[in-house]
């Protein structure tokens, strides 16, 4: 099985063949992981926000990949559902970014700093 995966792995870099869902998924994964790392490591609240954006984008890529008729046979795709979901994610991400920004501004107004390490008042 591992041999097959390895073999598959090299096939992926073939430029003559169209890419499949897995390529998009890997890119999405990278974006997702980067976004998660951003969320986990950044001390700046807006940095975390950017991490959230990255995560959502990674997810969007997945949706689009699954819904694209060009990446796999028509019978298996999500069709337009994938794109619609992606659209909604974008809208919601925008809304959530607005709110998060408002919270960050509020926090900044209260503590005059944007360092989330300072937001430890909920500690046990």
């Amino acid at each position, binding site marked *: 099985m591992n041999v097959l995966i390895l073999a598959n792995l090299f096939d992926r870099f073939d430029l003559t063949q169209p890419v499949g869902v897995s390529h998009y998924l890997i890119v999405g994964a990278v974006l997702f992981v980067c976004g998660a790392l951003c969320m986990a*490591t950044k001390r700046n609240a807006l940095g975390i926000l950017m991490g959230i954006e990255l995560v959502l984008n990674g997810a969007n890529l997945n949706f689009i990949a699954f819904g694209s008729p060009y990446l796999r046979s028509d019978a298996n795709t999500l069709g337009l559902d994938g794109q619609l979901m992606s659209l909604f994610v974008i809208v919601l991400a925008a809304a959530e970014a607005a709110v998060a920004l408002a919270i960050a501004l509020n926090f900044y107004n209260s503590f005059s700093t944007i360092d989330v390490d300072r937001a*430890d008042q*909920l*500690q*046990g």
Partner: protein
Amino acid sequence: MNPETALPNLLLAALLLPLLSFAVISIGYSVPQYLGIRTQYATQKYAAYIAIGAIVTGFVLSAYALFAVWLPTHPLEVAAHHAAHNNGPPTYVTGDWYLLGQFGKLTLSIGYYIDTLTVTMFCMVTLIASCIHIYAFGYMHDELHEYTDHEVTLDDGQHLHRRGRFHRFFQYFSLFSFSMLGICVSGNLAMTFVFWELVGICSYFLIGFYIERQSASTAANKAFIVNRIGDFGMLIGLMAIWSTLGTFNFGDMQDAQGNVVSHGIFSQLHDANHHYNLAPTDSMIAFEARDEVAAAVIAAPDNPVAAMNEVARKLRADKAHPWGHWLLFVAGVGIFCGCVGKSAQFPLHTWLPDAMEGPTPVSALVHSATMVAAGVFLVGRVYPIFTPEALLVIATTGCITLFLAATIAITAVDIKRVLAYSTISQLGFMMLALGLGGWLAGLFHLITHAFFKSLLFLCSGSVIHAVHTNDMREMGGLRKKMPITAYTMLIGCLAIAGVGVPFLAGFSGFHSKDLIVEQALSHWNANAAKTGFAWLFFVVPLATAGITAFYMFRLWYMTFAGEPRDHHRYDHAHESPQVMTGPLVVLAVFAVCAGWSFPSWAPGALANFGIANLLEQARPVGTLATTSGVLFPDLTIPSEHIAHAPEMFRTIKVPAGLAAITAALLGILLATVVYLWKSISAESLARTLRPLYTLSWHKWWFDELYDFVFVRPTLAIGALVAVVLDRGLIDGIIHALAAIGKGLAVIVSVVGDRFIIDNGVDKLAAETWNVGLALRAVQTGRLRQYVMFIVVGTVVLFLIASVWRYAVAG
């Protein structure tokens, strides 16, 4: 009227009426009192009416039974005076009223045995009881209001005030009447024993009537306990009889056709084949000869009963060894033990003087006329089972008793104590008479004694009621204030002294005592040749007759004659009301004429009517002939008719009659000299005879002796058991158990509860707290850390999902 059916019904009615009275009074008065409802004093009088009505009706029924039912069918004859053969059984009516149970061969039933003796006893008991009931109605009037008992001092120094309990007296009286009549009519020994105990209980209640007095309650205890000691011997006798004779019944039970179904104890022991002489039954011989019977049964195993009978027959003929007689002796002496207790004979005589703590009507009815007479009555009833040796034991006991009691009575100063010791002495006379073969003499004296002793007690009660003291030293000269009491008591004293015209007539006591003395002389005659002690049985009663006369007239003189010793009491003395003096007169009449009999030409049932002739008709089987002892062959019990035989007139009747009257007159003379004329002063006499006086005054130290030998060891054992066993051992065990329990509880509490549970709970709580505290550390409040957790969690979930799917798919 058929006596077979009428007599049982009449006597049953007379028996149950007092019981009914008891029940009615209990339900009407005692039950409400127990429930807290107080009965009015005015209504308590009705209790007395009920009781008196019951007993008087009982007397009427008894008299009717005697005169209208019995005598017409069994006319009296003057006693014949030949004693060639032993007499057969008397006429009797016997049967069962109620079968209580059957245990193998033994049937326990409530039954009757009615012969002339029964009917006569019924009449006597109900007549005297009626007189005393009526007397008590007046005597106990103190109980009709709040009663202050001056002999009881409470802790604060006050005398006891309590409600009167008039009704309770008559309640107990009725129960006692029922019990006594039950003994008289009883048809078997078991029933007798039951009523025996019942009489004892009633005596206990009545003696302890003034229960708050220490003296009264201890006297009641003493009476009951001493009686029970005698009953122990009685049980042995009962066991001996049952195990060999197989029945308790007195008479033969017949079926409807008149065939004998089962033999009673009398006919078993006095078989017609043996000429109605006393002979042990085959079963008794077989019991004593157990080894021989066992050997014979082994030899002939297929027919053991025949083998046993064969052995018995062979042994009966064996004159060398008295087979079966020891058992018969034991049976007789055993039953006599019960009579010793009940009739206050030596050595169980100590309870009767103390029983005078009860009210005087109780002393009159229970402790002079009836209950103590029950012992003598039983000896008379089961007379056929006594072997001559047993009769010797009875005579000895009676002899000792009569002398002992008379000597104590000489120095007693309590008027009731004198009469009590007099009662003991006269009972000794009766026992002596019975033991010497004088069945008729003994029972005759029983009946006459009942009349004059109850008369004497009632008179003394009248005196006590007037002067409020029992002590004769504070009385004197009372005959002017209480003439009726004084002169009826004089009649009683004359009767008990046995005064009369010799060979003609006299007071009732004269006749009966004469018969006793004659029988004693006849006995001496018969035994003088071979035994060395028979003269005692004549001389001692004779001397005691003199002593009796002496102390009775001492009593009369100290109470009624001379100058009053306590003027305060004398001034307050007054004659008793008519309700009390009426019975005195009635009893005085009987005390005078109870010894007489109607002539043969009297009309109807009164022909030959007299106590002696009545009793002669009831003579038990096999008691007429002269008998000799078997275990003690030198002993001869002469026939009673020898004393009255015309040819023995000069040998027996003259000397006995003269001796008796001489003794009586000497006694009266001595009493007159000392106490009336005061020619010899009583004090100097007492000083001269100081040792004798002290012996008499301290009642021969019997109470102290019994206290030392029996009471103290028992109490010591009781205390030992209580302290060592109860408090030490048992309480110790219980306390130890409790302490162990407590210790365990402490251990459980400390170790279990505090260490384990409390600590556990506390530790648990602390650990929970610590865990909480520890987990708190997770909540750092740091956003990035939370995100890291999310990411890590996601990774782990992914891994798990993948692996799972991988494993499932693969």
